[in-house]
């Protein structure tokens, strides 16, 4: 297909030996990771720059990617975190008033190996049937080096990815509101829009490195703590979980999102489980049991809290996924905390659950007034 684009062959090899052929884009090379799919029809740049995808090879089920180009304002972090990128077709002539370059240029600048021209639906169906699977993308002839690559896929591990994505130093962000709440945003790989939402809701925010402990928090004396999203298996983070136990004792309101939701649940004694192929997309229906309403949410997670594993009295499930009944939110009234599995900060995705930020702010205000 060199007519309009690069036609250098590239391959996807899965752990079971299945090969999918396509053409290469981004940089050349070989990359390893867990292959996952996301169904969002918009927001590819947000996907690439969402730290929760750290170490994963991401497939877009929507076939036309890159239509509106890339732009710095829509990035959810400073860089791309995906291990590799799979699309049906990428757009070489993007069109949008904010367009500042093609997705191919972006992948090159981020050193990401990509593959296009793949039967993405076939691969998606495979992941759905057999579950998330390890694999690689390579621009070398896969058939020549299959055994070698399979061994490498098997050996490939992503260890404590939170450490890879978190910031090394604190960052301060201020709003112009007068009576601003001060939030400590625990950076397990936070998406920029969590920060933006907090600012929008009139909070001052200090972004804290993931390994910040209770002493760091005390020094900050925040009105509330936000536990951010992040990559990987929540059980991989025992130190973080221990810290969170201290945060709980500290008594300030806590709001957890995604990985933050899972970590707090574990800290309260619950278990997590790996989902067959995760929830990744912008159309996940979640029922708010208190409001008896279903909201469409943005999601990106491979693990879920097991609802039944929550010890008696530790917390109350407030949100469930309408599709598969998995836990999507927990309220911990005794510790003024609540968490959700989905992304109320959206970006990409629907803004339908922005009310949760309001709830967090209310809690903090009540805390300030000593009425918790």
């Amino acid at each position, binding site marked *: 297909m060199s007519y309009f684009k690069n036609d250098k062959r590239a391959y996807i090899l899965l752990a079971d030996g299945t090969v999918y052929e396509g053409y290469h884009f981004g940089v050349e090379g070989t990359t390893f990771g867990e292959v996952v799919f996301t*169904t969002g029809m918009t927001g590819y740049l947000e996907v690439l720059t969402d730290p929760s995808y750290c170490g994963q090879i991401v497939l877009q089920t929507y076939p036309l990617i890159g239509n509106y180009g890339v732009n710095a304002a829509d990035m959810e972090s400073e860089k791309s975190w995906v291990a590799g990128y799979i699309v049906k077709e990428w757009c070489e002539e993007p069109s949008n008033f904010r367009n500042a370059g093609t997705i191919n240029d972006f992948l090159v600048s981020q050193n990401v190996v990509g593959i296009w021209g793949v039967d993405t639906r076939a691969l998606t169906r495979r992941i759905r049937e057999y579950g998330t699977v390890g694999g690689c993308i390579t621009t070398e002839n896969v058939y020549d080096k299959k055994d070698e690559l399979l061994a490498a896929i098997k050996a490939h591990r992503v260890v404590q990815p939170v450490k890879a994505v978190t910031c090394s130093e604190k960052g301060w962000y201020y709003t112009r509101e007068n009576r601003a709440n001060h939030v400590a945003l625990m950076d397990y790989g936070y998406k920029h829009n969590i920060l933006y939402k907090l600012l929008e809701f009139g909070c001052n925010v200090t972004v804290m490195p993931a390994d910040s402990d209770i002493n760091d928090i005390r020094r900050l004396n925040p009105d509330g703590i936000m536990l951010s999203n992040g990559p990987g298996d929540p059980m991989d983070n025992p130190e973080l979980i221990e810290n969170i136990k201290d945060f709980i004792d500290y008594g300030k309101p806590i709001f957890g999102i995604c990985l933050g939701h899972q970590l707090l649940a574990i800290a309260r004694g619950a278990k997590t489980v790996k989902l067959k192929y995760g929830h990744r997309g912008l159309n996940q229906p979640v029922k708010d049991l208190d409001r008896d309403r279903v909201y469409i949410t943005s999601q990106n997670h491979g693990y879920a809290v097991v609802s039944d594993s929550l010890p008696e009295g530790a917390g109350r499930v407030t949100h469930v996924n309408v599709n598969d009944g998995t836990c999507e939110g927990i309220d911990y009234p005794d510790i003024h905390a609540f968490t959700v599995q989905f992304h109320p900060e959206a970006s990409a995705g629907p803004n339908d659950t922005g009310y949760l930020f309001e709830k967090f702010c209310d809690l903090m205000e009540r805390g300030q007034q000593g009425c918790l």
Partner: protein
Amino acid sequence: MPLAKDLKKVLVIGSGPIVIGQAAEFDYAGTQACKALRAAGLNVVLINSNPATIMTDKAMADEIYIEPLTLDVVKRVIIKEKPDGILSTLGGQTGLNLSMQLAKEGFLDEHGVRLLGADVDTIDMAEDRQSFKDAMRAIGEPTIPSKVVESTKDAIDFAERIGYPVIVRPAFTLGGTGGGIANNAEELDHIATRGLRLSPIHQVLIERGIAGWKEIEFEVMRDGKGNVITVCSMENFDPVGIHTGDSIVVAPCQTLSDKEYQMLRTSALKIISTLGVEGGCNCQFALDPENFNYAVIEVNPRVSRSSALASKATGYPIAKMASLIAVGFSLDEIVNDITGKTTACFEPVIDYIVVKFPRWPFDKFVYAQRTLGTQMKATGEIMAIGNSFEHAMMKAVRSIELGFDTLSVDKYRMASDAEIMEAMARKDDERCFVVYEALYRGMSIDDINQTTMIDHWFLDKLRHVAVIEHDLTEKGLNAERLHVARELGFLDSTIARLTGYDYDKETCKIVLPEGFEDEFNDAPYASYKMVDTCAGEFKAETPYFYSTRDRENEAELFLEEHHDDKKKVLVFGSGPIRIGQGIEFDYCSVHCAWALRELGYEAIIINNNPETVSTDFDTSDRLYFEPLTAEDVRAVVETENPIGAIVQFGGQTAIKLTQHLQEIKVPIIGTDPTYIDAAEDRERFDEVLEACGIPRPKGDTVFTAEEALDVANRLGYPVLLRPSYVLGGQNMIIAHNDDDVREYMGIITSHEITNPVLVDKYLMGKEVEVDAICDGTDYLIPGIMEHIEKAGVHSGDSISVYPPQTLDDEVKATIVDYTGKLARALHVIGLVNIQYVVYDGQVYVIEVNPRSSRTVPYISKVTDIPMVDLATRIMMGETLADMGYASGLHPSKDHVAVKVPVFSFSKLEDVDTQLGPEMKSTGEVLGVATNFGDAVYKGLVAAGNDMARKGGVLITVRDRDKAEACAIAKRFHDMGFVVYATAGTAKALHDFGVPAHMVRRISEAKPNIGDLLENREVHYVISTSATGRQPHRDSVRMRRKTVESSISLITALDTARALLGCLESERTLAEIPLIDLNTI
């Protein structure tokens, strides 16, 4: 919230006849609604005047009234049936308007009927321009500067303030009827005057033009709990300014970043929540391509054409969900039919792109103004699904059936660059082809964008197609081009045509020289992917597929998984709705599929019309949403391996596939193709007639103008000229002299003609039509239909009466006899439609169509003989005797049914409304009663005549009609009508003794006919003219003015007499009993 407990019986209002702006999509919606409500255990009462629909089928509702959709009739139905609720949002603008009037008058409250799916305030807020703007302002949603005015002067004052161009939108009209864009005061004067007149509340909106903004639509749903979801987003290829019904539309949006997308999505959900809609809602936005500014253009708080498209584009059944929500269910209580596991409360995601392409009637109405604007002109549309824009677009051009297999149009290929630039600036139905031509010659995308304001993204994608077509044509074939062309959706036949290679009709593949590298050589023709609402995230059971050039063929996997021993039969849909091939054929395809399934076969439907019931995925065992061309069908055959194909029900679209199907060795089930051909081939048909001893009007076949003149003079004028192999009387005329013949042959021979032109002696007799079912031996005629208008008015445009009222028994017996002989002689297995003319007591055959016809649905309904089902069973091996039917004419029912055609003339500027041998109607209504007079009365009312019994009548007829016109005028005069006439007619009337006011022609000094019409001093206009068509002619302009002034227009004297019969009788609609079709 489960089903509301107080609901036991629900009234559903249909949308009436098919007109431009309100078409088959409401049959799809109404059918889904009826099915869903009955499945929920409700008793359903249906009223709809349109007999060609699936929704008016017996099985669809408990009580079915094919009655005029007037306020009084609906009231009577309510009083008789005492429903608990009325569903207002599934019957288009017609259903909504009626419901609103009933509610506002307090009638619903008075009779304890709940308005379901909408509330009056909501509808008012959305429909009334000013309240809509106020409502949007109140919730902080931007709209375009605009003002509602009630006079042309106010319109101009406001426009002067906000600046031109301005858009004029009349309130409460269908498909934006009467709207337009004005660039200056003069244009505004014209458009606003017309808009004010057409608006039932005499209001128009004047609005600032926002040319070049993107037009984006969202289909959203909300339930009583307040759950809100987006079903689908859509982006128009054409920027704002062209009615979305006339735009090429893609789904989902392509050029919006998530920020823009979510901004509009949030707005749409806010709007539906604020309006409190319970059901579906369409929100249209304009989005500035240069920043985040947007404006809400329009909100339709009901099921619409766009929602039909969104349903087919995503697989999410909006009409069904809207109905269930209306009766109390919430989205999270309804199971998603597609996955069978998840609920309806989610947002569909798709992993393909959909292109919708409109089908305009300009091939029929050659003099119509083709400019597109705010008034919709398309009669139908097609949808194409692909996993790239290019692929979907290539499928789309094939699906519209204008004879294209790429976007190249010869006349533009021949044009100069300057002509192309000029043509590109015109916003007409061919602009997309002009743009393609510009790309083909390598004009810059920036220049094209400057002129058309079509987004760069679309232009660049189209460029890919153009470059490949160009290179195949200019540089020839190589492996790479072959590969790329196929990936972009070129057919092998197209590639062969462009490169001069041979094409093998049997394999449907290009013939490549030995050693030519062909990557697709061993690949299947197509790999089908499933439409599943969730981009593969969940396992789906929907047998709804589209083709790709990918590796994995999901349809094949589906077949393996669902393997059974059932035999498979292909059934074709009829493609886009167009004049001459309407919803009737969809009715037939659907019934065929149902009958096959009942018989234990698997029915496989191929079709591409998103508005229809046939493309609902639960109609057939498998639905392939594909163009109806030989190669596209070949690909389905490879995957499905059917035992045969049925071509009788899909109109000419399916019949045209017959030869290809034979070439690819797919057996034709039903009448043998050789006999289909015998009916179409002049010489062979003559032999058949001779053998049967059946006379036909004398005639011959010709290829050239000289031959035509020769034959015409031999036969004696008038003669009928038409091409063979046509449907809907396309390009058919009655010639009265040599000039007519020369003009006609000139037009016909300007295209390449492969089939001869038929020249027949034209017999001005009574036209009679018969649909029969034949099993090869026995034949069944459910009923004979007699046309009110004499032969010469196309049968589709004639008022048709069942059973015949003026034929004597001998003539009827002859017709039955001839029908039997012809059916047997042509070895008809299934349906046959025969048209006769009775002249001087003699019966002649005009034509025989060995397939279903547009009268099949209505005759099936009024005779209670399920014609398509019987025909299908016969095709699959049963006989009429097996099914308990005797051979011959079925005994007539006690009821009389009168089918009246309905036109969309007011939407098509410059089209002559004079009826003739070329079909012009877009839809039909039915009047059913216990006697002829009542039935005609109902039919005429249903077709929109106000049946005034006093007032004025204008008569202006050609010379040979003057004698008859005098008698008609006298009857009007005797009833107390004031008769107006043009000079010639007036003189004739005076001589005859009918006082008539002479009025000047429309081109003469004022006051003239124009003023008479504008002031609505007449209720009826009777006009015939020798020749017409050309828009500048006085007679044509006068008739235009009549339809644009919403005055009843009659162009055949027979119609006038039928009307007079009704007016002279004492009857009123209120006295004519309602008929429940299920009790006939």
